[in-house]
């Protein structure tokens, strides 16, 4: 079918329209608008518009996982966040994970503050991101973030080398990590139960009896009571 058949369906986008919606910023900074912001300006924005949810130091997990925490100066050198293998690290903060600073710029500009997305100006976005980087000890308090200096920041991102595409789940013909067994009889000698729901969690998802049909082959167990003997 020749697409000419569909003439009159859809129309050309105007430059203003594309500008209004094409706001994404790529890891190579394609799409990043010119502008700048200081750590100091960023602090003002953060404290008034962000801290209520993310905490004064970006450490809160009241509303979402912390933005700041778990990264070191060493990580900025290696580009690998060491605490990601530390079982005692309680949370995985944004800065521990994010490899690309563009991601933060793009996301803050498109979606934050959460209840008022698309309200930060370009300069305010630079500023508040500068402040986040400052809180993460990636830049100092004099830092001015702009479309040029952001490239330097990228070179210091703690987890910039922490990502891999070497896996079977990116493309459809990728290879799975492990394959199950097709054994049909006598496949295991002893079956050991390695994990069960702890007793105290029995009713943590509320009464399962009220999450199942009241007829049919099965009922939901009344989890407000101990199991029937």
């Amino acid at each position: 079918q020749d697409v000419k058949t569909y003439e009159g369906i859809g129309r050309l986008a105007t430059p203003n329209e594309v500008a209004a919606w094409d706001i994404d910023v790529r890891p190579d900074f394609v799409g990043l608008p010119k502008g700048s912001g200081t750590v100091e300006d960023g602090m003002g924005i953060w404290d008034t518009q962000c801290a209520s949810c993310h905490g004064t130091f970006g450490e809160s997990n009241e509303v979402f996982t912390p933005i700041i925490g778990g990264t070191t100066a060493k990580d900025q050198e290696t580009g690998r966040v060491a605490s990601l293998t530390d079982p005692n690290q309680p949370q995985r903060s944004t800065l521990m994970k994010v490899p690309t600073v563009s991601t933060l710029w793009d996301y803050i500009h498109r979606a934050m503050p959460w209840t008022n997305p698309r309200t930060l100006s370009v300069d305010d976005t630079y500023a508040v991101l500068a402040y986040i980087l400052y809180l993460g000890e990636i830049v100092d308090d004099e830092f001015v973030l702009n479309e040029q200096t952001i490239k330097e920041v990228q070179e210091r991102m703690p987890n910039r080398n922490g990502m891999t595409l070497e896996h079977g789940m990116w493309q459809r013909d990728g290879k799975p990590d492990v394959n199950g067994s097709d054994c049909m009889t006598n496949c295991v000698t002893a079956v050991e139960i390695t994990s069960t729901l702890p007793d105290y969690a029995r009713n943590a998802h509320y009464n399962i009896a009220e999450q199942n049909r009241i007829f049919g082959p099965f009922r939901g167990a009344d989890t407000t009571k101990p199991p029937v003997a």
Partner: protein
Amino acid sequence: ATGMGAKAMAQAGPDDPAIIEKQIWQTTLGQPVAVKPYGEPSIYEKYLQRRQSPGLTAVDAASVSFAPLQGFFGIITPNGLHFERHHQGWYDIDPNKHRLMINGMVKKELVFTMDDLMRLPSTSKFHFIECGANTGMEWGNVAVPTVQYTHGMLSCCEFTGVPLSLLLEMAGADLKKGKYVLAEGNDGSGMTRTIPMEIALDDVMVAWAMNGEMLRPENGYPLRLVVPGVQGVSWVKWLRRIEVGDKPYGTKDEAVHYIDLMPDGTHRQYTTVQEVKSVITTPSGGQQLLTTGFYNISGLAWSGRGKIQRVDVSVDGGRNWSQARLESPIMDKCLTRFNIDWVWDGKPAILQSRAVDSTGHIQPMINALREVRGTRSIYHNNAIQSWKVDTNGEVSNVQVG
């Protein structure tokens, strides 16, 4: 055990009042037609709801509600019970103010209204959608009691829309240099995900309908991307823009979330395809068998790489397996319902299902997965699920090794 035994077939049981006594629905006039111009389930079905998993998320608008798989039949998910996942809440967007823009590496940047899109040659396909984080709470240990919470970020619909490839052709996309598309949503999060061009041109749809009617607002009304076999986050809801580009976009939900933490501290980025998986939905965790005797074990199987080829079921924790019946039609990247006979003798049992897809890939045990991925990757847990049946008939979520 509370003295349960196979109900004997009573030669002359007591008369059942439900039969002997006339019921109100036999002796009075019922309700008229169209008293519900859009109908609802029976009041006796009220326990089957979408539910949040307590403690999973701190705020309800960046959260998930799980579908009650324990009460489903066949493969179709009723639209009212489709699982939800929002990052910045949902809106019932005015379809007359919704637009789709195609831009980037194209000859003509285009804008479509819903009027436009729905004039184009459409197609209808059945596909499952599964969140990449489905079963993610179970990587380390048993964490939740029922199949609603272990596997309920899973649904299956008939979708109707236009092939994305057609829109890309209309825009004159540069298919030499354009290796990726970015899909963007019209919600507060402006949800953005990169999709490899190979998949985009294959079977991705720009869809407006699910199960015969327009998309539900919670599922992207009036327009969403359907990316068969790929994790739900890429099925961008309230779809407003498709950009053609030469590099992945590293968006928040590709660079900070939906990345799988490996034991060496690296994250796998752009994990996309949902691998072969299955789960027994009845009986399942939190349910209770009423008596010994015959039961129909029933469940769902699916693969992001193709069709389901077979499903095996074990009732003894994986020692022995038998092949289950598959309901037809068996469709590409779609749920397949399986059933198998079982006679419960009242002794403890561990029920498991194991799916094989058309690429020959076999669903693995959790321990095998952990050997490669450790226990903290959150996403893409396609392990065999184990349900323990206790002597009292109560079924619970367990892991075996």
